[in-house]
């Protein structure tokens, strides 16, 4: 009869209690893994933004426009390698709920600044030469079922076409991929000129500019020069790195996310405390038996180890089942959530964190009873029972 067999026997002596305890741990880790994955997916938009790109927006707010003349002025500033300008189109396809991220851009410089956008050369030149051409991201094209050469009408919830209505006709002239898997290609870009010539407000204004500098180390310098150039002018600018810009945007969704995750983590730990209490009780009940084991000649450290291994096992069984279930749910939800959360995946760090908590749970709940077992005086124990 080896120790493991004894541990197994002890664990399964009250199968219902073992099941209930494991189940509670299972639930705790299921929630932990699913919610942590969700949180990291929400945060991942920030991590993917390039650190060496700068964004120039109107200092009042990024929804306020800038004069087109700024584009040439910024291009002329020393240290600026490539710059492009973009306008938010507010696009949707057929139904106002089916929003399509669409931007009017200066085509050639756009492809130079966003070098993670990959288009095959024929499609690239086709797009550059077609005034009504639109460049569609692979994932977007797949979800909408668009192919090269398709004529698609996109509507805007902001702008009006000068011929009436809010709908623009585009020709799909290219489909682009991201340079790697994680690049989110669910958007479309089209010609700024076509946009300006056909919308009712007219005017020569742009939404914002994105640029790359000669070297990331001079980013701060270049940003300062740009903002100084336009200080006290008609439209002052605010230049920041794309990463900082995206981060600020996500911060706008605000502390509600923080509050929610705080609440869920509190709950996670409370469930662990509740479960830990039951596990500790299971050992306390057996004081008499431990005394018997010791009488039979089991050494104190050996009893200590057995008690500890038992609680660790319970924590790991429940925990890993919960983790596995969480993974299954995330995998199942992946395709339907892809539209909102493209980076939904349980990372190794989340798994590592969960395993750490399982071990901690096993140790904390096992340690005190195990220590008591270690110190147990056989005579007192027998007297007590």
């Amino acid at each position, binding site marked *: 009869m080896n120790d493991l067999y004894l541990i197994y026997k002890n664990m399964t002596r009250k199968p219902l209690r073992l099941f*209930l305890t494991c189940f509670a741990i299972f639930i705790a880790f299921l929630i932990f893994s699913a919610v942590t994955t969700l949180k990291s997916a929400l945060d991942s938009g920030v991590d993917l933004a390039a650190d060496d790109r700068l964004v120039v927006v109107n200092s009042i707010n990024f929804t306020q426009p800038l004069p087109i003349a700024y584009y040439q002025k910024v291009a002329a500033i020393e240290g600026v390698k490539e710059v492009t300008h973009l306008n938010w189109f507010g696009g949707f396809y057929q139904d106002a709920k089916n929003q399509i991220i669409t931007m009017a851009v200066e085509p050639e410089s756009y492809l130079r600044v966003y070098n993670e956008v990959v288009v095959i050369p024929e499609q690239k030149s086709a797009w550059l030469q077609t005034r009504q051409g639109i460049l569609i991201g692979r994932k977007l094209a797949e979800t909408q079922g668009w192919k090269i050469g398709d004529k698609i009408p996109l509507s805007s919830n902001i702008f009006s076409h000068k011929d009436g209505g809010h709908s623009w006709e585009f020709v799909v002239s290219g489909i682009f991929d991201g340079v790697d898997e994680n690049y989110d290609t669910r958007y479309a870009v089209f010609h700024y000129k076509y946009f300006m010539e056909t919308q009712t407000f007219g005017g020569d204004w742009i939404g914002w500019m994105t640029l790359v500098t000669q070297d990331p180390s001079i980013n701060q310098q270049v940003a300062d020069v740009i903002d100084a150039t336009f200080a006290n002018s008609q439209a002052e600018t605010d230049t920041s790195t794309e990463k900082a810009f995206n981060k600020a945007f996500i911060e706008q969704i605000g502390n509600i996310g923080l509050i929610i995750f705080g609440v869920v983590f509190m709950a996670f730990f409370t469930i662990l*405390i509740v479960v830990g209490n039951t596990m500790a009780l299971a050992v306390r009940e057996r004081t008499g038996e431990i005394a018997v084991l010791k009488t039979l000649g089991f050494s104190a450290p050996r009893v200590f180890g057995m008690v500890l291994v038992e609680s660790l096992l319970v924590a790991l069984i429940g925990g890993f089942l919960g983790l596995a279930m969480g993974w299954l749910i995330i995998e199942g939800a992946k395709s339907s959530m892809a539209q909102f959360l493209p980076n939904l995946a349980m990372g190794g760090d989340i798994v590592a964190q969960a395993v750490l908590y399982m071990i901690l749970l096993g140790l904390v709940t096992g340690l005190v009873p195990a220590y008591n077992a270690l110190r147990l005086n056989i005579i007192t124990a027998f007297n007590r029972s």
Partner: protein
Amino acid sequence: MTSLFAQIGTVAMMNIRSLPRRLWMSLAMVLASAVVVAILLAFLAMAKGFESTMNSAGSDRVAVMMREGSAAEINSVITREQVNLIEESPGIARDTEGAPLVSPELYVIVDGLKKSSATKANIPLRGINTTGMAMRGNMQLVEGRMFTAGTNELIVGTGVLREFDGFALGEEVRFGKNVWTVVGVFTTGGNVFESELWADVKVIQSHYDRGSSYQTIRAQLETPGDISGLEKTIELEPRLNLEVQTESAYFAAQGKQLEYMAIFGRVISAIMALGALAGALNTMYTSVADRAKEIATLRTLGFSNLSAFCGTMIEALVLSAAGGLLGSAAAFLFFDGLSASTLGGSFTQVVFSFEMSPDLFAQGAQLALLIGFTSGFFPAWRAARLPVIVAFRAAT
């Protein structure tokens, strides 16, 4: 019959008096149901707070008009000509001199520094006139004075003041090259308008290069809720490519935005309730095992099965109800009135407070009792069915 009730009462009291013997397990059950209830209430209070911030802003007496398809105020554009046409429409209330109660408004976004994250966030700067202000029935200045028309003065909502830095009374605020002075603080009874800055619409038109254009038209209705007059005008006049709805309908739709939080909260707390249930069942089975000898004694003395069943059941319900109370109290303490802000449908920050309403407490209590009932039932069944002999043997 009376003796049965007396029996149940006796057994229940015995169970409850013996609780200190099982202190830790009992506390665990209380804690487990408290957490589940607190979680549910936290999510519901968030969704509720956001919804009532939106809903209470909308009035049935006011119609909102935007360019068709624009969905939110920020996207819309309206010309002076369209405003003139609307002013002639039937169905609009008029003041004593016969002037139409119509408020053309501008809605531009400016940056403010959010206190919680120290990052910039979108705040709406609304261009408005006195007619428009009168349409917000509950608008009141709590500090300072009204802005003077034609100047760079603005008044700030209390929500903005609460969540953002730099808008205190008397402070100068710089948006781009324009410097504004905060001359007043207003409240609108806790609704979404408090998340806004208000200034003279003409001044904003000129500073933001809007010519004579506006973004939305609000009109006081002759008959509350009746927009048919306006609908007809819009239908007959091709120059009016507008959508009209009552203000309450507009904000009710926007208030649904955080509904997913309530759904998320229900799902999370339902899953978590299963975990808590497992813990509670453990507690109750331990309780039955602990009292096996008592139960057997009582049954020998002639107490009925039912009294054993009910005694355990009542113990479970008392514990879970205590948990429910604890959870509700914690949720109330931590979350009720908690100020938060998020990006609303108009692409600007909506400042709102978590709201713990009585119906939420009722939902929390339901959940706690459900946990109590389920976790009590099976152990109580065991207590009632346990053969007396076995119970005595198990206890010794």
